[in-house]
């Protein structure tokens, strides 16, 4: 018998940031992304668990919604599943409605709206620990009676925090709640229920208000945001160095050991010049990527990000975006793909399209190896003002250049649009939370695994292919130039050089740009392989420092601020916009910007040198 067909089907529904995905992870044992802001889940997710009675339960985690009158594409998924209109998805047997126990004033309205569906329901009062800490007392028995459905307290972020819900679901399927009549004002009904069942010393947490007085201040808040961002990039350079050196030394000695075991020949070259030189050049950037994500994960969990969105709303509005675009754009610092997908929480289609078009300008983590390679090679590792690391300042500047460019492009798109209407930002500011070390550790572990899988997967595959193209055909007898000049890759590189020479790129860089379209880190491994095959024994950073001019390095840095995104990003834009035209427009403008900006940078830097 098909387990999924016979299983009890429950759907986890609720307002954004009520802890639905954390509860889903607790129930199913999965590790879906959770964070302390609204709009993390933008798709339906499915998982299973076996109840103590042996019954299989199929759990659907749905995007958060404030109402069944969907205002954005992610809310439409929730609405359609609840109404049984979602293609290939039957109406759930039971709705588990998750509500934030510290914010029932907002969340209960949706509970009452869901009750109108006439489906069996259970209410999970989540974050009960936070409610207790704030002195919020909830008479669950009375609430249960008032709503006509079982009410269970949960702490979804704590291990075992959903045990009572599991036990309850195993005992009874839930109750068919009495539906509020159509003419009833749900807000008034919520107020009446709260008056009977909840007592709270104050509506908001005292600590939140105190912190918000600083971080939401129009001047102080922006200063805090700038300092936070600045410190992140300082740390990326300052903290990673010792670990990077250790990794580089380990790879070098391993490569030398393997090289000694094999006789000279193509196989030895594949391993030394291809695998060890290429992958090693990328692998050393793992510590920097993890430090960057340490900060991003901590900020995501703390609840600070929506405040930053609120602070930047005015600036983003001037550029033709809204604060709602902030979270998708911030997600793009990790990778443009989840960033583009996160735009589903943007209600206005034109704001959404503009955000999709500028998301690739945010500096994704795949660009970090290129940036840090060039910065380490050309920018001296000295302190400025006795405190700041100069290399960190340059990295910060590159990130800022991406942000400013995105805002400028959004402004131009707004000018080109006939529709100049502006949309006010309505965003929920969650309560602050201390990041949980275990969650951060899991997040970092997953991030490291993702990076290592990329290194062992697509980066390895492309490095091997580039080694092959750079090694064959072999040079003719009596050839005097390096063997790579006679190879297929060498010839392609020299051809491409004609196009990229005005930007100061040599033929080695020109070759590396092509596999870099698949994944940007591959540009680094490709450079390492090409230089290794050209007979250079030193590390890539030393080769680059010795053989390139500062103007070339600056030009390449600028190229990667704008460089056309990877193929996966293009595929995601195609899927999200359902239009090849928009894909070509986005790729075209990014390529044009990259070429123009690099050309200007190189020509100006060369003239000044």
């Amino acid at each position, binding site marked *: 018998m098909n387990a999924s067909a016979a299983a009890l089907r429950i759907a986890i529904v609720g307002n954004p940031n009520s802890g639905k*995905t954390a509860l889903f992870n607790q129930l199913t044992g999965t590790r*879906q*992304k959770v964070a302390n802001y609204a709009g*993390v*889940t*933008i*798709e*339906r*997710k499915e998982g299973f668990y076996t109840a103590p009675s042996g019954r299989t339960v199929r759990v659907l985690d749905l995007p958060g919604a404030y109402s069944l009158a969907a205002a954005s*594409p*992610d809310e*439409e*998924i929730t609405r359609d599943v609840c109404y049984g209109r*979602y*293609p*290939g998805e039957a109406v759930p047997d039971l709705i588990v409605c998750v509500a934030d126990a510290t914010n029932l004033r907002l969340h209960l309205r949706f509970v009452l709206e869901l009750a109108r569906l006439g489906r069996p329901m259970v209410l999970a009062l989540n974050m009960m620990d936070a409610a207790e800490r704030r002195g919020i007392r909830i008479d669950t028995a009375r609430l249960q009676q008032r709503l006509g459905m079982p009410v269970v307290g949960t702490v979804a972020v704590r291990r075992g925090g959903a045990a009572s819900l599991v036990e309850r679901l195993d005992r009874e399927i839930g109750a068919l709640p009495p539906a509020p009549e159509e003419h009833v004002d749900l807000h008034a009904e919520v107020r009446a229920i709260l008056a009977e069942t909840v007592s709270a010393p104050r509506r908001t947490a005292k600590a939140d208000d105190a912190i918000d007085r600083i971080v939401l201040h129009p001047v102080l808040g922006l200063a805090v945001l700038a300092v936070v961002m600045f410190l992140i990039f300082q740390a990326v350079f300052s903290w990673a160095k010792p670990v990077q050196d250790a990794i580089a030394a380990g790879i070098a000695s391993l490569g030398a050991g393997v090289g000694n075991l094999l*006789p000279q*020949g*193509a*196989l030895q070259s*594949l391993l030394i010049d291809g695998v060890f030189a290429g992958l090693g050049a990328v692998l050393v950037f793992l510590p920097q990527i993890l430090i960057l994500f340490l900060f991003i994960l901590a900020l995501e969990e703390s609840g600070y990000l929506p405040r930053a969105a609120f602070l930047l709303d005015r600036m983003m509005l001037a550029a033709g975006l809204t604060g709602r675009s902030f979270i998708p754009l911030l*997600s793009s610092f*990790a*990778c*443009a*793909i*989840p960033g583009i*997908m996160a735009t*589903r929480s943007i209600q206005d*289609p*034109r704001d*959404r*399209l503009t955000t999709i078009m500028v998301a690739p300008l945010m500096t994704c983590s795949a660009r970090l190896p290129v940036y840090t390679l060039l910065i380490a090679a050309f920018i001296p590792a000295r302190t400025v003002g006795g405190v700041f690391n100069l290399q960190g300042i340059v990295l910060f500047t590159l990130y800022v250049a991406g942000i400013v460019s995105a805002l400028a492009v959004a402004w131009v798109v707004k000018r080109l649009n006939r*529709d100049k209407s502006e949309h006010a930002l309505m965003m929920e500011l969650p309560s602050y939370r201390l990041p949980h070390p275990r969650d951060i550790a899991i997040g970092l572990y997953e*991030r490291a695994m*993702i*990076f290592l*899988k*990329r290194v062992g*997967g*697509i980066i*390895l*595959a*492309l490095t*091997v*292919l580039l080694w*092959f193209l750079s090694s064959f055909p072999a040079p003719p007898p009596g050839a005097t130039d390096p063997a790579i000049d006679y190879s297929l890759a060498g010839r392609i590189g020299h051809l491409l050089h004609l196009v990229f020479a005005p930007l100061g790129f040599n033929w080695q860089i020109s070759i590396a740009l092509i596999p870099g379209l*698949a*994944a940007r880190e591959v540009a680094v491994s490709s450079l390492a392989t090409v230089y290794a095959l050209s007979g250079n024994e030193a590390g890539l950073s030393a080769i680059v420092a010795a053989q390139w001019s500062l103007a070339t390095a600056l030009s390449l840095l600028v190229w990667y601020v704008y460089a056309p995104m*990877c*193929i*996966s*990003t293009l*595929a*995601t834009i195609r*899927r*999200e*916009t*359902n*239009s090849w035209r928009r894909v070509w427009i986005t790729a075209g403008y990014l390529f044009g910007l990259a070429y123009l900006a690099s050309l200007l940078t190189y020509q100006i830097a060369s003239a000044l040198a």
Partner: protein
Amino acid sequence: MMTYAVAQALIIALVVAWSAWYAARRLVPTASRRAQARLATWIETSQRSAWLRRVGHAMQPVQTTSGGCGTSGCSTCGNCAPVPRVEAQPLVFRPRAKR
């Protein structure tokens, strides 16, 4: 020495072939799946021997509704999983009502 040269050529050929196959699967999933299906069908034709037909059958790509990246919340383009097409959220522009 001759044996080493043959083994070396064989290993390199296999590694390069795997790399090409892997890169194609990741970068152009639909086209590579289509090519794989075509090749498998060609091998599977009735004129071939039974074992070759079995190989062709095993080579048939697993049917999925969509390929490419995009698991929500994955924060990366590195751990992709096939996503059912029904989850796509295309942008739909509707003319605004005149104000």
